[in-house]
């Protein structure tokens, strides 16, 4: 219950906008999948295609093996939460949640029972008679969840529901949603542009850009093994260093960068001599040393340009001899460098990744 398949799905808007470009995706029962990407990448359009509010230009949508591509939204087994929540202002909480059941002509006592259960599930017991305008932001969110889940849909769709919330409420709702989802084990497709949100809630993340899927994987895979410079740059921060391949020795690739030679694991990158590529290394895998005399292989020389505190981390911005900017991050309290220091920039070789030279 709740398998979703997108086959070669495309959607174009006139005049020439390819909002969704040949997307292929399989989602398992009970998975929490996030469609992640910048605005305009097609994630919301994809969601709306699944819900049935847009007709695809080509391709198919299957829910539990059934082709629903031609079905209207009211015949699809999906429950959707909109960005604006769209709770009916002219009805109270009970009527909002009961709406779908009434359409299906469910018995009155059954409806009442279900509404009570749902309000318990979203931890808002007793609020049946409240008018929507009397509810707080967090309460409205939960009513919207309850309404969407009232008919036990196969797929739970959410379109950036937390975008308008402040940080604390957002984090609280993220936990709430995940807890809820795990409890009823419903396939969930979540859309957001906030990569932290995606990383914290998802089983798998689908990174999208310009209508195409850039990468699909668990949060860990996406973070540690980005498939492209776009993904590497979009998720967290990363240093991107242009390089040319000098030679390959088994699993180790030797490259030349503007700042000197570097060795990196090949990690599945098709390495050929002379090929240009990009080395991606996360700031937490960059170490600094003031012993600048020993020229360690694969290290750069540079000066600390700028230093700033970001939460529990300290970020150092280093300008290398070849005028590249490298960012290194340390836990607060575990380093003692100052602006103006000359340092050696040392990479954790295992954490390096090779990527295609992209346009980002």
């Amino acid at each position: 219950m709740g398998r979703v398949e997108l086959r070669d799905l495309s959607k174009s808007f006139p005049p020439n906008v390819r909002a969704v470009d040949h997307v292929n995706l399989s989602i398992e029962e009970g998975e929490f999948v996030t469609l992640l990407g910048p605005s305009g990448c097609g994630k919301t359009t994809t969601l709306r295609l699944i819900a049935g509010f847009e007709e695809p230009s080509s391709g198919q949508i299957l829910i539990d093996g059934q082709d629903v591509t031609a079905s209207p939204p009211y015949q699809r087994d999906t429950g959707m939460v909109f960005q604006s929540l769209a709770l009916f202002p002219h009805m109270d909480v009970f009527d909002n949640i009961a709406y779908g059941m009434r359409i299906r002509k469910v018995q009155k006592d059954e409806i009442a029972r279900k509404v009570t259960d749902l309000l318990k599930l979203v931890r808002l017991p007793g609020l049946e008679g409240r008018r929507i305008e009397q509810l707080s932001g967090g309460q409205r969110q939960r009513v919207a969840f309850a309404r969407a889940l009232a008919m036990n849909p196969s797929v739970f769709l959410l379109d950036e529901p937390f975008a308008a919330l402040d940080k604390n409420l957002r984090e609280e709702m993220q936990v709430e949603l995940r807890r809820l989802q795990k409890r009823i084990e419903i396939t969930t497709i979540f859309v957001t542009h906030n990569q932290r949100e995606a990383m914290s809630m998802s089983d798998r993340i689908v990174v999208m850009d310009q209508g195409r899927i850039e990468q699909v994987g668990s949060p860990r895979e996406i973070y540690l093994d980005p498939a492209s410079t776009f993904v590497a740059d979009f998720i967290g921060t990363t240093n991107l260093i242009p390089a040319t391949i000098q030679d390959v020795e088994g699993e180790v690739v030797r490259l030349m960068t503007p700042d000197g030679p570097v060795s990196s694991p090949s990690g599945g990158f098709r390495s050929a001599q002379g090929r240009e590529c990009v080395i991606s290394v996360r700031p937490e895998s960059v170490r600094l040393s003031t012993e600048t005399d020993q020229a360690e292989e694969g290290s750069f020389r540079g000066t600390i340009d700028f230093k700033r505190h970001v939460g529990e981390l300290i970020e150092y911005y280093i300008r290398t001899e070849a005028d590249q900017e490298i960012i290194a991050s340390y836990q607060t309290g575990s380093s003692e460098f100052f602006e103006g220091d000359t340092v050696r920039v040392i990479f954790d070789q295992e954490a390096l990744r090779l990527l295609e030279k992209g346009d980002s």
Partner: protein
Amino acid sequence: MKFQRTGRLLLGACFASIVIFLVLPLLIVIAVSFTSDIFMVFPPKGLSLQWYREFLTMSDWRGAIRNSLIIASGTAVLSTSIALVLGFVLDRYEIRFAQAIRTLGLLPFLLPPVIIGIAFMAFFYAVGYSGKVFNVIIAHGIFYTTLPLMLISLGFESVDKEVEEAAMNLGATELRVFTTVTLPLIRNDVFAGILFSFILSLNEYFIAFLVAGFTVTTLPIKIFSSLRYSYSPTIAAVSVFFILITTGVIIAINKLTKGMWD
């Protein structure tokens, strides 16, 4: 709402028929105005511009045109000036009874014309000065204050206060800020107000008739009385004239207010 094909077609057909309903009578009038026959016939028997010529050359029609234009211009000036000053002071200063004064400005147009018409009749009789073009200008000018007031008030509201504050910070007095900063920004709304009241006054029959109908003949009054006594296609030609002017003014207003009706 994409899926009910038949429902949508039905709705579309309804829409189209109402569009036709709205437009058709006007098209017929335009067609009839070109007839070479002496009666209004559709389809027109032959094509001729004689009715346009008659309309533009006969002295009684020209007199009516002249009166209407004078009255409409006077109305535009009067109503827009009232609206501009009213809008300005209400926007700028803390006034006691501001809400009541604003309602006073918005009220005239909301009352049925017959009320306004008779009220002005009574007023001018009591004052002893009736049946003059001036009376109509006053009556129309007050009646049509409402629309320029609404437009200009919205215009004032949309002026970014910080721009004016910046001007003041640079040394401009209130009056100077108004003339050099605010007025240029609301210029379009003021023009729209002028055009609105002009065209409304040009078209208006009843109040003009009540206030000065026996002595002053405006274009609508002439049309109306012509309808009583003859059915000549000249009236059709005059109507086309109105249609063209009104459409032109509306398009101008839309451009000036940068698509306020989207």
